C-alpha cells in the first residue's frame, strides 16, 4: 500500500500535466478545424450551438457569458482592480460629516469572488469550445444532433447528477469555499483592531503573522501556541479514548442477558444527547463552580474544608472538562456499540467459554479487536471532532483560567478553536485568528491522513467507496 503511494502520486502529477496539454491541444484543433460558427463561438459563447439548432445549450452558455460581463463591469472590477493594495483612499471628515474611503474588507472579499468568476468563465469558455467541437464532429459523421427536448430531459436521467448537485455545490461554493479562501488570505494581511474596515484600511504584510506564530521571544506567541496545541491534542486523545472504552463498557453492561429494562437504561443515558448542550452544560458549569452546588454540599457535609477549585485551577479545570465530557460522550459510544455488539456471532463466545476463557480474556481477544476494526473510521472522526470541540470547552470554562505566562488571552483550557473564537469575537484580531485557523486545518489534515492510511478497515475496503 505504502510503496505504491509514491508511484501513484507521480502518476497523478504526470496525468495532470498530460490533461492540461490535452486541453490546449483541443482548443487549438477546434479553432483550426472549426467552421466560422465555431470560430465566432470563441468570442460569443454558444453562438455555434444556437446556429446549429441547439438553442438550449447555446442560450445557457451565452447567458453565463452575459452574466459574467454584467457582474464584472457592474460590480466586480472596481474591487478586483484594487486587490493588490486593498485600497488607498482613507476615510475623511468633511466638517461633521464622515465620508468613508475604500473598504479593504469588501475589496478583498469581492476581489476573490471576481477571481473565481474569471476562473469559472474560463472553464465555461472551454466547455463552450468542447461543445462546438462535439457538435461539429457529430455533423461531420452525418449524425443528427439531439433535440432540445432530449437535452432537457437528460437532466432527469443521464445528467440527473448535475440537477441534483447544482444547488448544493453552488451553496457550498459561496458560503464555504469563498469565505475560507478569504480568511486564508486574511492571514497575509494586517487586518486587526487597528485596521478595521470601513474606518481604517488594511493591507498585505506577507508572512509577518506566521513569523509571529513561530517567534518564541517576549512579543511572539510561539510558546503559547505550542502550549495550546499540546493541550488540544491531549484533550482530543483523552476525550476520544476514555469515552470510547467507557461507552463500550456501559454498552456491554446493558447488553448482559440478565439485565432487564434495557430500554430504560439507554433512554436515561441518551438524555445528554437530546438536551441542547447550552442548557445542560451551562448548568453543569454552575454546578461545579467554586461557590456552586457540589462544593456547597461537600462543605456542608464536612467532607472538605474549603472549596475545590474545579474551574480555576489549571490542572483541575482540564480534568474536570474531561470528566464532564464523559457524561456527554458515553451515550454516543454506547448507542453505536450496542448495535455492533449484537453483530458478533454468539458461538465465538460459546467456544471461548468452553475453552475456559474468562470474561476479560473474551473481551480482549474477541470483542475489542472486532470493535476496533469496525469502528476505526468512527474513532478517527471522533478524534478530529474533539480537536474542534468548541461547545464543551466554551460552555464550561471559556478557555479559562488565563495566565500571565500565556500570550494573546489564551487560557489553560483553551483549544485552538476556542482561542481562535476569542480572537475573532472579543479581540477582532482577524489576522492571527486566520493563522490559527490554518494551523487547525494543518493539524487536522495531517492526523487524518496519517491515521487514515493506517486503519485496518480502510486497507480492506476501498476507502470512500
Amino acid at each position, binding site marked *: 500500500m505504502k510503496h505504491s503511494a509514491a508511484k501513484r502520486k507521480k502518476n497523478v502529477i504526470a496525468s495532470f500535466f498530460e490533461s492540461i496539454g490535452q486541453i490546449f491541444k483541443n482548443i487549438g484543433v477546434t479553432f483550426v478545424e472549426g467552421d466560422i460558427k465555431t470560430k465566432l463561438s470563441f468570442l460569443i459563447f454558444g453562438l455555434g450551438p444556437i446556429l446549429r439548432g441547439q438553442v438550449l445549450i447555446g442560450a445557457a452558455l451565452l447567458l453565463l457569458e452575459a452574466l459574467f460581463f454584467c457582474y464584472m463591469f457592474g460590480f466586480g472590477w472596481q474591487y478586483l482592480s484594487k486587490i493588490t493594495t486593498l485600497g488607498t483612499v482613507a476615510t475623511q471628515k468633511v466638517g461633521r460629516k464622515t465620508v468613508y474611503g475604500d473598504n479593504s474588507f469588501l475589496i478583498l472579499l469581492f476581489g476573490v469572488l471576481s477571481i473565481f468568476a474569471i476562473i469559472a468563465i474560463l472553464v465555461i469558455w472551454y466547455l463552450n469550445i468542447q461543445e462546438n467541437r462535439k457538435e461539429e464532429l457529430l455533423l461531420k459523421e452525418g449524425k443528427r444532433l439531439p433535440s432540445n427536448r432530449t437535452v432537457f430531459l437528460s437532466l432527469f436521467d443521464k445528467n440527473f447528477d448535475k440537477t441534483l448537485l447544482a444547488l448544493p455545490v453552488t451553496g457550498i461554493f459561496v458560503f464555504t469555499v469563498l469565505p475560507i479562501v478569504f480568511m486564508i488570505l486574511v492571514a497575509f494581511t494586517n487586518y486587526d483592531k487597528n485596521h478595521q474596515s470601513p474606518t481604517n484600511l488594511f493591507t498585505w504584510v506577507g508572512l509577518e503573522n506566521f513569523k509571529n506564530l513561530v517567534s518564541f521571544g517576549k512579543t511572539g506567541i510561539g510558546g503559547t501556541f505550542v502550549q495550546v496545541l499540546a493541550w488540544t491534542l491531549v484533550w482530543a486523545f483523552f476525550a476520544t479514548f476514555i469515552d470510547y472504552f467507557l461507552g463500550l463498557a456501559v454498552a456491554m453492561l446493558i447488553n448482559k442477558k440478565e*439485565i432487564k429494562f434495557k430500554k430504560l437504561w439507554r433512554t436515561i443515558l441518551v438524555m445528554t444527547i437530546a438536551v441542547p448542550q447550552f442548557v445542560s452544560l451551562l448548568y453543569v458549569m454552575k454546578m461545579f463552580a467554586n461557590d456552586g452546588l457540589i462544593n*456547597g454540599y461537600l462543605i456542608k457535609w464536612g467532607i472538605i474544608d474549603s472549596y475545590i477549585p474545579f474551574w480555576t485551577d489549571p490542572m483541575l479545570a482540564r480534568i474536570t472538562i474531561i470528566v464532564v465530557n464523559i457524561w456527554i460522550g458515553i451515550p454516543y459510544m454506547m448507542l453505536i456499540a450496542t448495535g455492533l455488539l449484537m453483530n458478533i456471532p454468539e458461538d465465538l463466545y460459546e467456544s471461548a467459554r468452553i475453552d475456559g476463557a474468562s470474561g476479560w480474556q473474551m473481551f480482549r481477544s474477541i470483542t475489542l479487536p472486532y470493535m476496533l476494526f469496525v469502528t476505526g473510521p*468512527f474513532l478517527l472522526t471522533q478524534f478530529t471532532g474533539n480537536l474542534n470541540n468548541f461547545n464543551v470547552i466554551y460552555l464550561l470554562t471559556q478557555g479559562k483560567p488565563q495566565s500571565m505566562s500565556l500570550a494573546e488571552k489564551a487560557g489553560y483550557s483553551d483549544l485552538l478553536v476556542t482561542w481562535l473564537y476569542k480572537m475573532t469575537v472579543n479581540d477582532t484580531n482577524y489576522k492571527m485568528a486566520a493563522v490559527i485557523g490554518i494551523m487547525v486545518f494543518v493539524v487536522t489534515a495531517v492526523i487524518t491522513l496519517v491515521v487514515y492510511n493506517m486503519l485496518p478497515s480502510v486497507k480492506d475496503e476501498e476507502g470512500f467507496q
Partner: protein
Amino acid sequence: MNKSYKTKRKISTAISYVLLVLISIIWLFPFVGLVLQSFRSYKTEFGGMVDYLVPHSFSLDNYRFLFSGETNFILWYRNTLVIAFFVTIFQTIIVLCVSYALSRMRFKGRTILMRFWLVLGMFPGFLTMICLYFLLKMLGLTQAGAVPGLILVSIASCGMGYYVCKGYFDTIPKALDEAARIDGATRARIFFTMTIPMSKPIIIYTALVAFMAPWCDYVFASYVAFGHDKSYNVAVAMTRWVWTNDYQGYFTRFCAGGVLIAVPVTLLFMFLQKYYVEGVTGGAVKG
C-alpha cells in the same frame, strides 16, 4: 460447582444493577437540578445562584415571567422553531440529493468533489464567521433578517454532510436500479419512486439531526442577529442571562427556559431514538 456458579452470577448481576443505578443517578442529577431550580420561587428566594438543590418553596414564578411579555421569550422560541423547521426540510432534501448523486451516479470529477469537500471540512467553522456575516449583510439577511439568514447559511453548506446518508444508499442493491432502468425508468423516477420510499430510517435520522442543531447555535446566531433582540434564537438570548452581569437574578429563569426547550426536543428525540441509533451506527461503521 453449579451452585457456586449460580451465586457468582447472582452477585455479578447485582453489581451490574448497582452500577446502572449509580450511572443513572449521575446522568440524571443535572437535569433534576435544572428542573428543581426552575420551580424555585422568585419572590421568596430571588433568582440568583444558590448552593442547595431543593428549593425552599416551589412556584411557577419563573415560567410566568417567561410568558409575561417582559422578555421576548415566546418570540425567540418561535424563531428557533422556524429556523429548525426550515433547516430540517431543506437540509433533508439537499442531503438526499447529494447522497443519491454520489452513491448512484458515476460522473467526471466525482472523487475529486468528495475529496475536496473532505478537505473543506477540516477548516474550523469559526474561521469564516466574520466573512459569512458580511456576506449575509450584503444580502440584507442580518439583524431584522437574521432568521432567514441563519436558515440560508445552514442549508447552503449542508451538502457536505452526506456521509451517513450515502453510506445507507450504498447498501441498497444497485441491481434494483439496473432493473428499473432496463424497464425504461429515468434516474429521477428511480430516485423519487424507489430510493426515497426505501430510505425512511435515514430520512428520519437526517431530519432529526438537522432539527436539533439550531437549538444550540449561539455563536453564529448572535453574530447574525447583531443586537437585534427580535431575531434572537433561544440559545443566543438565554446564554446572555448566564454570562453577562446585566441580568441579575436570571438564573432560575434560565433554568425554566432551559426546561421548556429541553422537553420538546428530548421527547422528539426519544420518540425517534430508534432511527437515530440506526443512523449513527451506520455512519460510524461506514466512516
